[in-house]
């Protein structure tokens, strides 16, 4: 069964190839069908494979071809199928398929329809390969490939300067992370002499014993890569801007799948991370800080997609926090549930944008629930799941990772407080968004409000399906610590257990925690209700409570401006200096030499009268001198 694993990436790839070659001239609208078929095929094969592998989650591999052999460096392209991969595959292919279906409706009137359905399967292919990679290099290759797709799709509406700018920003920020990843990869090659997962994992304890500290360095470098891809502070700046892309893209790439690649990577390298407590602490702290940091910004954003983007950054921060305390299963669990409800929220916001004729500013919305009931209902489900209301998906996973954090020791208390605060703010901004969008009196012009409509079925059906997922996906983790996903991933994260990072909570603890997190979520919703429903329209008045704080948050702590001025501006200034140096100094020296030679030549040129007899005379004179010299010497 595992031998057909190559079909999973191959089918979307074939769809990409067909659409890319024929889409513009021949297929046009039919590209949507082909892309959907390809991704559906991948989904079906993934499910079949999952079912077939359900009872034994031993890693299996499928060799494809030799990539390169150079001296003692040898690398094959190998597909890996194990528990973690299969979980990721299921999430990726199912969400992808929903987004593909949805996009047929959403992109219907776009002149770049075929282009969209060329890029999207390419992304799915790359993402599938990313999770199926069996060695670091292939992981890196597709790590970059998904970044490329992200670049292409963010800049999809390339006539907009802001879209192109956002695309370049995303690519470059990711590149900064990738430099860390690449250095980590090279260090692994240098230290381990191999890039294969299993070999690295089995050698890790030996290496740690032989060269203490090197693993910390490697883990931190890899984590820099993860920070770039998963938009962790301080490399998070690209993700909100990435909302310039079409909304299905935001749902698929910038919420459900690609941005979780960092989480996947750290989880995949758990045998390395558990050996370095420093790296783990860094991961946890960065994650927790990002979670809170992004949530505060999310409170003040008015663009519906930007709120979701900061929410994504925040949720990814929670996942990293869980990874950092060794709760790998909880992190992956949250990754999976998050994919469903965040995908749902994004698609819902896309539906809103679609129905309101490209309106993204929540200040000009309100009261939309009556106009678009399906979207509104599913959106509320997604919001509840995100806030962590029992028994929706987000509750189980968030509850579990908060619990694991609390149990992880001294640092755990701090992390827990940060995480809980982030959860509280999450509930606040989520319901701020819901209230501002769907409830209260509308703030739209009457003329426009009358044109608001529910989206077509091709878009609402995916919403419903994802809403079902957002409700039900959490049950794979029930009962806590002993659910389906825990058993399934148990072997993958065995290293954490060996390292003593897994603490089994008592039942009382679990129940108490459940109560606490429910209270937190409800509290958040209440606060949002109090501010944004009862005193609607509220944003301005809220801002008036603490103007400096509000300004700070609205401007995202001025981090973007700082980067723009210092990093981009600095690089440009330096580039200008270098260019000047090259033109005037380096080339100047060359030209100076040329000038000197020319000057000397000009002097000598005057000797060239051009008259033959002068030349003949010089010859004669020269001969006379040579002979004179000869005669002198002969004496």
């Amino acid at each position: 069964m595992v031998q057909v694993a190559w079909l999973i990436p191959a089918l979307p790839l074939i769809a990409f190839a067909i659409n890319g070659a024929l889409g513009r001239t021949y297929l046009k609208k039919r590209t949507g069908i082909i892309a959907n078929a390809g991704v559906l095929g991948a989904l079906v094969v993934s499910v079949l494979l999952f079912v077939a592998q359900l009872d034994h989650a031993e890693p299996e591999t499928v060799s494809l071809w030799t990539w390169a052999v150079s001296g003692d460096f040898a690398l094959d392209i190998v597909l890996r199928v194990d528990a973690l991969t299969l979980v990721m595959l299921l999430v990726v292919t199912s969400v992808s398929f929903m987004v593909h279906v949805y996009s047929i409706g959403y992109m219907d009137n776009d002149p770049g329809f075929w282009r969209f359905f060329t890029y999207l399967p390419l992304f799915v292919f790359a993402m599938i390969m990313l999770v199926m990679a069996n060695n670091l290099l292939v992981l890196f290759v597709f790590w970059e490939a998904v970044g490329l797709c992200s670049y292409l799709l963010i800049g999809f509406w390339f006539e907009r300067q802001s879209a192109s700018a956002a695309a370049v920003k995303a690519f470059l920020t990711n590149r900064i992370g990738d430099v860390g990843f690449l250095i980590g990869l090279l260090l692994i090659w240098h230290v381990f002499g191999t890039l294969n997962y299993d070999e690295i994992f089995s050698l890790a304890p030996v290496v740690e014993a032989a060269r203490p500290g090197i693993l910390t360095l490697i883990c931190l470098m890899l984590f820099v890569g993860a920070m770039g891809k998963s938009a962790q502070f301080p490399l998070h700046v690209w993700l909100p801007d990435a909302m310039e892309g079409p909304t299905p893209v935001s749902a698929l790439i910038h919420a459900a799948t690609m941005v979780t690649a960092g989480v996947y990577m750290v989880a995949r390298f758990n045998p390395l991370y558990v050996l370095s407590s420093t790296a783990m602490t860094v991961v946890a702290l960065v994650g927790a800080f990002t979670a809170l940091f992004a949530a505060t910004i999310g409170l003040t954003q008015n663009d519906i997609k930007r709120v979701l983007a900061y929410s994504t950054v925040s949720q990814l921060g929670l996942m990293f926090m869980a990874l950092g305390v060794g709760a790998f299963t909880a992190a992956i669990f949250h990754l999976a549930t998050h994919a469903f409800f965040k995908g749902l929220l994004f698609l819902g916001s896309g539906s809103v944008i679609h129905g309101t004729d490209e309106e993204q500013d929540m200040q000009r919305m309100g009261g939309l629930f009556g106009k678009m009931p399906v979207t509104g209902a599913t959106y509320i489900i997604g919001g509840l799941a995100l806030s962590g209301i029992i028994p929706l998906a987000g509750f189980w996973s968030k509850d579990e990772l908060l619990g694991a954090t609390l149990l992880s020791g001294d640092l755990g208390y701090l992390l827990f407080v940060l995480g809980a605060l982030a959860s509280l703010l999450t509930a606040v901004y989520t319901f701020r968004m819901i209230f501002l969008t769907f409830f209260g009196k509308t703030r739209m012009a009457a003329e426009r409000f009358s044109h608001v409509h529910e989206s077509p079925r091709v878009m609402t059906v995916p919403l419903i399906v994802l809403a079902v997922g957002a409700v039900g996906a959490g049950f794979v983790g029930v009962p806590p610590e002993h659910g389906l996903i825990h058993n399934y991933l148990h072997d993958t994260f065995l290293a954490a257990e060996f390292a003593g990072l897994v603490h089994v909570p008592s039942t009382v603890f679990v129940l108490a925690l459940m109560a606490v997190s429910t209270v937190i979520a409800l509290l958040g919703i209440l606060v949002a209700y109090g501010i944004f429903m009862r005193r609607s329209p509220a944003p301005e008045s809220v801002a008036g409570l603490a103007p400096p704080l509000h300004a700070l948050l609205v401007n995202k702590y001025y981090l973007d401006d700082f980067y723009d001025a210092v990093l981009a501006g600095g690089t440009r200034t330096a580039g200008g200096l270098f260019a000047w140096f090259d033109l005037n100094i380096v080339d100047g020296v060359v030209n100076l030499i040329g000038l000197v030679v020319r000057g000397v030549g000009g002097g000598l040129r005057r000797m060239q009268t051009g008259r033959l007899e002068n030349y003949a005379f010089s010859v004669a004179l020269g001969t006379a001198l040579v002979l004179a010299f000869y005669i002198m010497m002969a004496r």
Partner: protein
Amino acid sequence: MDSIPILSIVLWLPLIAAVIVLFLRERRAMFAVAMAGSALSLILSVAVWAGFSPGDGMQFRESFDWLPALGIQYALGVDGISLLMVLLNTFLFFLCIVYAWASVHDRVKEYLFTMLLLEVGITGVFLALDFVLFYVFWEIMLIPMYVLIGVWGGERRVYATVKFVLYTLFGSLLMLVAILALYFVYGNTTGVYTFDILELTQGTYGERFQLWAFLAFFLAFAIKVPMVPFHTWLPDAHVEAPTTGSVILAGILLKMGGYGFIRFSLPLFPDASQAAQTIILVLSVIAILYGAMVALMQTDLKKLIAYSSVSHMGFVTLGIFSFTQQGLDGAMMQMFSHGLVTGALFLCVGQLYERTHDRRIANLGGLAHRLPIFAALFLFFSLASIGLPGLSGFVGEFMVLLGAFVADIRIFGVLAVFGIILSAAYMLWMYWRVMLGSLKEVHRRLEDLTRLETAILAAMALVTLWAGIQPQVFIGIFTADTSGIVQALTATEVSSALIK
């Protein structure tokens, strides 16, 4: 196949075509002959590849005495290193001549003659197994290049050609001196006076002599590569050269420098190479970062790509002077990839220029609206140039970095990694300003690529993709030969360490 002098045929076919072209009047006929000549040359070099057995040293050798009194032979042969270069060379020349069909209408006969002559010269450099023959080809190639830039070039072509020729001539004259010195030193110690490259490579030379000879060779190759600070001829030459001239210049001419380092500098002067390692590594890293920084601020498309070449070729020298298998293989792959990708980028710029008659980035914008096929291909090659994994550019850079990490010169590797951020920055920023955003009024009527132009770029794109997905196909050609060089080098390292 032993009985057929296939290398000679590959080498001289374009010359025969060139001579025939001289006697033709019709443009169509001239192109037919030129294309046939270069296509046959390409096919035969692929045939050589098919018959080539990796790791068996020099193959398809031909030799007969030329000036036996002086130990000069006409000797040809290929190993993996030169085979890859020859393949790249014949491939690019064929495409360039096909491209010229659509773009060159001025002095066609002279143009084709020059191009074919250039092909002979460059192929000869890679095939020659005799120093004199090598030097002859090395210099002969300058003349058609000079003509190509000087006749079909831009406004400041005279300045550019003179600079190019003087610069390279300066380097190669020193090399000639070193070759003669080598000849006499080898002859004095062994009594055999020969210019045979393989035989001279077997010899061992004193440390002082190595240092001086290395320096002379180094200048010639460093100017060709070009390494910072000998690079300033490159932007000028590229900007003024006609499109095909730029393609050949970037695609193959620069590779002669890297080839020279691998073929001559390392085997002939192992001790001197070791001694110069640090300096060259520093220069390489400077080239990578400095070239990228300068490229960032260029306003002319061709200059930008020219400086990106400086940056990319920095990886080549970095790889070579890491003295590791991976580094050398990476350098080879980087040269191959750079030849394809930068060649293709110059073709793209040429096609753009034919349509807009402008190369200043500020005057372009939003061209993707009118030129969708072009936009896709241009993006493809820009990404390949950035070193996107899965395309050929990545393989070379990655393996060079591997080499740097293996050789414990990690600091250089780490610094070089930052070059890849900068390369993404200048390429994507350029692409954004040229292709994306809103279209300018003057460009409303541009036409997209013709089928022929698309086919040319697509052919290059396919090879780029192939080399990125399955680089082993190409690495397998030369890795055995590079490993021989590395082993010889490390052997001397060990021996000199023992002496100390």
